[in-house]
């Protein structure tokens, strides 16, 4: 949508997306560099290390996945403010694979004078398997 929305614009059942995304190995390395000055082999950065932990390959850090889901919401409408985003990791998110983000509004209410929305957010693989599921509470800022 990429435009400001109002509280009244949203009905329960309205959807966000879908939006396609690939989280590349380069992006994972950039993310890990924020935390570590020297990147050590890990399940996030090294194929052999990941395989030694029983994974099929290196995976995307959960914090990065969460950030991507938050970005998906905030990109949709700039005047939304994410109050909470609570995620559940159901499956590993591999590097360099096609991902799809979708959201669906499940509740709307006004609390403490703030117009708020609740939204289920899903990060899926290309078979529509939900890899990460989340619930976000979003404040709709006045225009």
């Amino acid at each position, binding site marked *: 949508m990429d435009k400001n929305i109002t509280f009244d614009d949203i009905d329960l059942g309205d959807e966000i997306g879908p939006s396609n995304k690939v989280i590349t190995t380069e992006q994972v390395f950039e993310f890990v560099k924020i935390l570590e000055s020297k990147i050590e082999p890990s399940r996030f950065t090294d194929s052999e290390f990941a395989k030694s932990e029983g994974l099929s390959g290196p995976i995307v850090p959960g914090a990065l996945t969460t950030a991507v889901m938050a970005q998906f919401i905030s990109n949709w409408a700039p005047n939304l403010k994410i109050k909470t985003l609570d995620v*559940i990791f159901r499956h590993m998110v591999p590097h360099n694979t096609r991902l799809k983000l979708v959201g669906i509004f*499940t509740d709307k209410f006004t609390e403490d004078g703030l117009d708020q929305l609740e939204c*289920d957010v*899903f990060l899926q693989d290309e078979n529509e*398997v*939900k890899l990460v599921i989340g*619930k976000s509470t979003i404040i709709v800022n006045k225009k």
Partner: protein
Amino acid sequence: MILDLHTHSTLSDDSRASVEQYVKWINVLRRKGYNIDGFVLTEHRQFNFDIDYTQISKDNNITILKGAELDTDSGHFLVYGITKEIAKHIKFNNVNMSAIHLIDVCLNNGAIAIPAHPGRFGIGFIEYVNSNNFESINIVEHLNGSYRPGEQDRTEKLISDKGYLGIGGSDAHMVSAIGTCLTKFDHPVNNEKELVQALMTKKFKPIKLEDTK
């Protein structure tokens, strides 16, 4: 009577949906023309006798029943008709309880245990069905809203090979997932005892949400 027989509220550690939110969402689905009469809460590894959903159920004309999803040595089982007598014989949080014991306890106490998502890779009942004497099992969860590719096919084969009957449940952990898979009963189901009776009569079938319009 159309019920979602497999749902999780925030009482389950991996769910983010409250019962109140499920109720609100079912009302949204009803306004869109879908037909859902209610749901059964099947929390992971627990059963709370004290929680009472009668008022919210009446206020919204939505049947809300309680069951459990229990871990066993032969996969997860949906259990309906749990009583305090049953609770004396099983530990709900035992992740490796004997499935045979669970099934027997249920049969002897007016309850029923049904393999959940039997086609699931790794933990589905299909992995264990030939490892023990499960002749008293005749119903499995046919439709599950959380299946990955290939798991539904495995379930179809299991049902075909063994001649099982099937139920449907969304396995909802998020608000918008409730009702995606359901069970349609020929007779009314107003409480847990009637649910067990309805399952025993074998007059039910699994359906998807889109089939209820």
